[in-house]
């Protein structure tokens, strides 16, 4: 009799633990749903007033209560594109070195440093951006680009130092660690026999890497790029500090611009009026949806490669 009640008490304890931990887990789901709902509700005003034209008009005038997000969307896309153009070749190159060439004794410490680099806060990148990258751009790189490639509309206009190009470069430095870490892991999961087969057929070391190993890991590497893109789109501080914060749409990469995250950071506390605040929150919603889609794709792609990798490895 006493032993039975003891057992049931124990079982009750299990049930209590189960319920309590479930509540904690459920709160994670709840808070995530709440986040989406809040963004949606708080941006209702501008969504109803401007509809889809919010994304297509370029006038951002808080006093006249005219809000068009095009310059910010443009700036976000341009800076992210510049960042990827620089970061993807560098990141994949470094990942190939770490995964294929470097002996473990070298590869592991290097990866350790790359991980540390990913831990550097974005405001520090911004600090270095303002005081190092901007002057270098103004004095050296922008004049040099103008002299050599100045016939392209991309590299025309006065060299302020700040602007799309500078923001893109700082972003590139920030996302490279993500591309390297993920790509390295994906490359290392490519089965050994793929390399050996290519080498046995007489290919050079580079040919086996570039024509066999990299294509094998292609989907996963794409995943790492999407991840980096999501980071670049949502990055706030470093971009705010070097982009110039002027809502312009210009073909020139030297021109100061603005990005979605930067305008939220700069104007949120001084947004007077519900429509103004709502417009900024709608920009946040856009940012959320973009990163949501990109992160989802990235995860799917990495999942696909690692599964394929291990599947073939077993055979």
């Amino acid at each position, binding site marked *: 009799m006493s032993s039975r009640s003891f057992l049931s008490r124990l079982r009750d304890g*299990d049930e209590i633990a189960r319920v309590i931990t479930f509540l904690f*887990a459920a709160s994670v789901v709840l808070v995530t749903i709440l986040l989406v709902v809040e*963004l949606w509700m708080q941006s209702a005003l501008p969504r109803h007033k401007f509809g889809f034209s919010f994304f297509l008009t370029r006038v951002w005038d808080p006093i006249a209560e005219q809000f068009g997000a095009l310059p910010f969307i443009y700036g976000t896309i341009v800076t992210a594109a510049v960042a990827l153009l620089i970061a993807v070749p560098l990141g994949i*190159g470094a990942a190939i070195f770490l995964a294929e060439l470097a002996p473990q004794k070298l590869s592991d410490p*290097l990866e350790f440093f790359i991980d540390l680099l990913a831990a550097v806060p974005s*405001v520090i990148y911004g600090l270095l951006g303002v005081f190092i990258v901007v002057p270098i751009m103004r004095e050296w790189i922008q004049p040099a680009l103008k002299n050599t490639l100045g016939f392209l509309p991309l590299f025309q206009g006065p060299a302020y130092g700040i602007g799309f190009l500078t923001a893109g470069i700082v972003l590139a430095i920030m996302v490279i660690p993500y591309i390297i870490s993920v790509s390295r892991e994906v490359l290392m999961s490519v089965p050994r026999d793929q390399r050996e087969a290519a080498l046995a057929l007489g290919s050079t070391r*580079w*040919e086996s890497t570039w024509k066999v190993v990299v294509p094998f890991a292609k989907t996963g590497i794409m995943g790492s790029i999407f991840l980096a893109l999501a980071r670049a789109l949502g990055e706030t501080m470093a971009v705010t500090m070097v982009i110039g914060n002027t809502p312009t749409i210009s073909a020139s990469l030297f021109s100061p611009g603005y990005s979605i995250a930067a305008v939220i950071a700069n104007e949120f506390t001084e947004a007077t009026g519900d429509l103004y605040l709502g417009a900024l929150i709608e920009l946040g919603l856009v940012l959320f949806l973009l990163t949501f889609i990109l992160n989802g794709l990235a995860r799917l792609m990495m999942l696909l490669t690692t599964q394929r990798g291990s599947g073939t490895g077993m055979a």
Partner: protein
Amino acid sequence: MTARLCWRKFVSGFMLTMTGVCALVAVSVLFFILGYLVYHGGTSINWNFFTKLPTPVGETGGGMANAIVGSAKLLLLASAFGVPIGFFGGIYLAEFSGHKVAFVVRYAADLLNGVPSIVIGIFAYALVVLPFKHFSTLAGSFALGLMMIPITLRNTEEFLLGVPRALREASMALGASKWTTIARVVVPAAYRGIMTAILLALARVAGETAPLLFTAFGNRYWSPGLGQPTASLPVVIYNYAISPYDDWHRQAWAAGLVLLGLILMVNIVARVILARGVAVPRS
């Protein structure tokens, strides 16, 4: 050796060297950042930096004592909010949940992890700042804690799942209930891994600026209690860096050095512990 083979060997050697250059460039950025911060910030760090309040514009001297205390308060409160949710949620995922629930929770956590930090700031603003009608330590901690949840949750789950089945079975065979097994056997076995994961989560949010801009805001003075706006190191670095004053720039460098030093130290310690293997006894 034919010309074609020569060419192929040259291309191979050249491209492989280039990958090495890429890796070198990527890693050297870290040492450049560190070196520059030490060079610029090192000379500006003194006793006043840690003990004095900021001085009015134009007066030199002064420090960031309020920002340092503010950051510590924010992080402490953020952990008090984020760590339990992540930790117990992780226990649920690893020990109790079925596949479907686990999938939903994991999905939500990954989603939350990918949300740009500025959007987290908006959320905290709408949820905490708007109802209370002013910026506060509480709102900033909520934003940071939110960012700690997914990291703590997924790592707790992973380390718990890494505990060998035999340990659980041995404990159950001795008559322990499931909860006793979890609390006295499984969690202690995964303890070091979970602790380092929490440390990494803390280091990650310690440098976050964007979610604090319109939640904790900033403050030139001490911030008593939890209901007032508070200064924090990252936000002060941002404000000082974009200011036009040389003295503030110097202080921004100093604060950057302190912040980065702390974050890297935590990262190094945590990663060394992780690399040595988290003490999960193998049978």
